[in-house]
C-alpha cells in the first residue's frame, strides 16, 4: 500500500476523489474487517464486508473535513469502519428484539432472563446477603422509569447499548449519560443508607 501522508490523503480524497487512492483505502478496510470479523461472525462474511466498507467509505468522504490530523488518516478511517461494522452487527444480532417481548411473555407474565435459568436448587439464604438483595431492590425502585429500564437492560441483562437506545428512542451517547446518572443516584442512595459499594461487595466476598 502506498504510504501517503495525512495531507496527501486529504488532497487525494477531497472534492472528486482519486480513484486509485480510494481503491487503496477500500482494500485496506476490506482486509482489516475480514481479519477482525472472521472470529466474530459465523455467516458468509463477504457480502457483509462489502456493505460495511461501502457505508464506511461514504461516511469517510462525507466527514473528511472533521479529520483533525491528530492520528494517522488510515487509523481514523479504520475507526469509522469499525463503528459502522459493529453497530450494524449488534443491531442484526438483536433484530427481532423488542423491550416488550424481552420482559413480557404472551400470557403477560415476566420472562426470566437467561441468567436465571440455572436449575440448581437454592442454598440456604444468608441473612446479610438477603438484606443486600432487598436493599438493591429498593434502590432500583428509587430510579426514574427510564433510568431503571436502562440499568436493567444494559447493566443487568447485558443488551448492547445501540439496541437499547434504538428501542428507547434515544442514542448511545444519551443512553450512557442516562446510565451514568443512574449509577451516581444509586451510589448516593447507598451512601444515605450508610453503605459503600465496597461494603456490599464484602458481604459477597
Amino acid at each position, binding site marked *: 500500500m502506498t504510504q501517503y501522508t495525512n495531507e496527501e490523503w486529504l488532497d487525494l480524497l477531497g472534492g472528486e476523489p482519486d480513484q486509485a487512492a480510494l481503491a487503496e483505502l477500500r482494500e485496506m478496510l476490506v*482486509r*482489516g*474487517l475480514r*481479519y*477482525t470479523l472472521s472470529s466474530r461472525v459465523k455467516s458468509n462474511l463477504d457480502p457483509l464486508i462489502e456493505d460495511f466498507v461501502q457505508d464506511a467509505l461514504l461516511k469517510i468522504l462525507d466527514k473528511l473535513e472533521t479529520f483533525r490530523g*491528530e*492520528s*494517522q488518516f*488510515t*487509523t*481514523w478511517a*479504520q*475507526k469509522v*469502519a*469499525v*463503528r459502522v*461494522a*459493529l453497530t450494524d452487527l449488534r443491531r442484526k444480532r438483536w433484530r427481532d428484539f423488542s*423491550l*416488550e417481548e424481552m*420482559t*413480557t411473555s404472551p400470557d403477560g407474565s*415476566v420472562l*426470566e*432472563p437467561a*441468567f*436465571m435459568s*440455572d436449575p*440448581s436448587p*437454592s*442454598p440456604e439464604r444468608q441473612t446479610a*446477603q438477603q438484606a*443486600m*438483595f*432487598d436493599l438493591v*431492590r429498593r434502590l432500583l*425502585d428509587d430510579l426514574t*422509569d427510564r433510568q*431503571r*429500564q436502562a440499568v*436493567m437492560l444494559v*447493566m*443487568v441483562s447485558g443488551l*448492547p*447499548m445501540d439496541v437499547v437506545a434504538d428501542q428507547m428512542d434515544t442514542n*448511545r*451517547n*444519551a443512553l*450512557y*449519560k442516562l446510565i*451514568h446518572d443512574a*449509577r*451516581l443516584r*444509586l*451510589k448516593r442512595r447507598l451512601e444515605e443508607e450508610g453503605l459503600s*459499594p*465496597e461494603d*456490599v*461487595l464484602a458481604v*459477597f466476598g
Partner: protein
Amino acid sequence: MSNFTHSIRQLIARILGQPSSRERKKDELVQGLMKALRDSREREIGCDEVYEVLDQYAEAVLKGVDTAELMPLVNHHIHMCHECREELEMLMEMLRLQMA
C-alpha cells in the same frame, strides 16, 4: 404506570426478591452493579467524546503510552463501556494487522 414499567419492576422483584431466584446469579447481579457503582465517577464523558479521539487513543496504546495518565477520562470510559471497549479492541486488531 405503563405496562413496560410494571414489567421492569416485576423483573427486578423476580430476580432479587422471590425465593425461587437462583442465589449465584443474584450474587453476580448485585456484585456487577456494585462494581459499576464503585468505579463510577462524578465526571464521566460519553461515547461520542470517546469516539472523537478513539483513533488517537488506539495509537497511543500501541506506542505504549500511559493512557491513564495522558487521557484519563477516555481511559475510564473504556473501562466502563463495553461497546467502546469492543470498538477499541477491534480497531487495535486492525492496526496490528496493518503493522505486521
